[in-house]
């Protein structure tokens, strides 16, 4: 059924269709509307046989999800930013224990300085936690990926994050096609746990493993992600059969077949990039884009297949490996090892900085002329940066950077872009 609703509401309704039995979450912007929506639907009885558990922190939210999942319940939670960091220890435990929890991450920057706006630093900080990470381009894909994530997670007995851009998607009203309960039931069978805490058949989950077998347990975690690489395309194909549209999968190439320049990106910025690529194609420029849906597992072979015939690759990412450059870029370089092509890393959109079409046109034009630095920062305001550097050169006790910058430029969030 077509609906014009907020992304958060679309995700909440999709989660309800997945019939979770335990939802435990702690509110944090920009995830709040999702769990508020779910709370309302549990209270109203729209979602039956589900317990919504209120807790005092994200650490508890994940811990309760672990307990619920281990007891055989289909479990869901959602968080963002500092909330994800606060639950980090339990995040690793969920995957180490092999519990198929599904969690929405409404992607948001990490402080300090405090910033509630979107980038991918939060979920990417958990890239080695053993969770699957799927990135949504639109609200339609965000809601679809939740249905897919439960199926994938439970089939493999691995937890999965569905990552959607905070505010840009969570707070955007757009058209979505909401599946029927019958469709979701046909796609997602009832949860059949591999392991379950049952007083009738007592066992323990979470034993200590020493040096004699820890490597093997870790290897098996890696092997499971490699299984996910095989399974994700199969589940996306099945998704299309049941729901009639393309969602999920490993990668989404767009106009990449004969492209000399291929941009690589994740999430909602792909829409803006596609508009720019269409305009550049109209002008005769051979450019395309590769959207990464599955960040973990990393689809190295699929990435290589799309990129190998290009002359240059521009990875545009909303994350920064401080002291290195890109995070996604590092994965892409690994996919391209041994190939001779120009690779550029562009850090963009950190902390909600708007990624403008005009800036992308200029960026891709420069890339086509191979006039980009190996690592660059899109629309970085050098006046701000240089003023801070100058201040630091001038005075030993130059003071806190964020506060000094705010004194230089004025109030938070004052401009349109």
């Amino acid at each position, binding site marked *: 059924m*077509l609906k014009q609703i907020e992304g958060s509401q679309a995700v909440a309704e999709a989660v309800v269709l997945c019939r979770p039995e335990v939802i435990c979450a702690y509110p944090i912007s920009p995830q709040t509307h999702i769990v508020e929506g779910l709370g309302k639907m549990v209270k109203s009885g729209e979602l039956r046989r589900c317990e919504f558990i209120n807790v005092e922190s994200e650490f508890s939210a994940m811990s309760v999800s672990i307990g619920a999942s281990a007891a055989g319940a289909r479990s869901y939670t959602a968080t963002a930013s500092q909330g994800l960091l606060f639950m980090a220890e339990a995040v690793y435990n969920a995957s180490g224990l092999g519990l198929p929890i599904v969690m929405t991450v409404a992607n948001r920057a990490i402080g300090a300085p405090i910033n509630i706006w979107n980038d991918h630093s939060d979920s990417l900080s958990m890239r080695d936690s053993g969770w699957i990470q799927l990135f949504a381009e639109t609200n339609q894909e965000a809601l679809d990926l939740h249905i897919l994530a439960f199926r994938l997670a439970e089939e493999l007995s691995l937890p999965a994050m569905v990552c959607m851009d905070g505010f840009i998607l969570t*707070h*955007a*009203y757009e058209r979505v096609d909401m599946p029927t309960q019958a469709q979701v039931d046909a796609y997602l069978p009832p949860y059949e746990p591999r392991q379950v805490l049952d007083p009738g058949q007592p066992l323990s989950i979470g034993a200590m493993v020493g040096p004699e077998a820890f490597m093997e347990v870790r290897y098996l975690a890696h092997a499971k992600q490699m299984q996910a690489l095989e399974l994700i395309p199969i589940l996306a194909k099945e998704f299309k059969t049941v729901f009639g549209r393309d969602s999920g999968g490993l990668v989404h190439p767009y106009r990449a077949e004969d492209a000399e320049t291929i941009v690589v990106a994740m999430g*909602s910025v792909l829409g803006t990039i596609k508009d720019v690529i269409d305009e550049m194609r109209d002008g005769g420029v051979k450019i395309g884009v590769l959207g990464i849906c599955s960040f973990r597992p990393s689809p190295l072979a699929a990435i290589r297949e799309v990129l190998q015939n290009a002359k240059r690759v521009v990875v545009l990412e909303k994350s920064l490996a401080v002291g290195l450059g890109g995070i996604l870029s590092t994965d892409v370089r690994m996919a391209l090892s041994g190939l001779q092509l120009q690779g550029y890393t562009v850090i963009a959109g950190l902390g909600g900085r708007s990624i403008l079409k005009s800036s992308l046109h200029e960026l891709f034009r420069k890339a086509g002329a191979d006039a980009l630095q190996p690592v660059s920062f899109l629309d970085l305001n050098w006046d701000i940066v240089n003023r801070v550097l100058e201040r630091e050169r001038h005075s030993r006790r130059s003071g806190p950077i964020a506060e000094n910058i705010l004194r230089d430029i004025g109030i938070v*969030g004052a401009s349109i872009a």
Partner: protein
Amino acid sequence: MFQVRIHGRGGQGVVTAAEMLSIAAFLEERYAQAFPSFGSERTGAPVVAFCRIDDKEIRLREPIMKPDALIIQDPTLLHQVDVFAGLEADGFILINTNRSFAELGLGDFARGFRAERLRTVAATELALKHVGRPLPNAALLGGFAAVSGLISLAAVAAAIKDKFSGKVADGNIAAATEAYEAAHA
């Protein structure tokens, strides 16, 4: 693609206005995308929300830099925010005020635009009359339907019903209808 930027203050329903506009366009079988500017949410602080309307899927996610239409929910913003940024000479402007463009000190400025695309509507007064609260957003959408011809009053009314119910919906629909008639005249 038609792009609308709505300026107002926290508490005036600016974000809701953009959302309702997108619902109205959706109900008329078009694609629409509404989103807020995501500033810190404080009552009285300047707020911007955006709505894009098109006949095909909207992929663009940048803020609206070059609006086709502006809805200004609070005329005091004229002195505080560059609300007209990016508006071309054929753009639409709808301001919530009981004064004229000339009385707002915008007489010279307005001469650069097409007169039939500029309108003021006393939306706060209409909201007080019909809803009992100074929330001008729904009334302004009625005025916007009249001045732009982009969406019908019926679709605006249906969008209001989608967001509100009971007396609040009825009052807002009455305010939107009166604003529509006033802006049409």
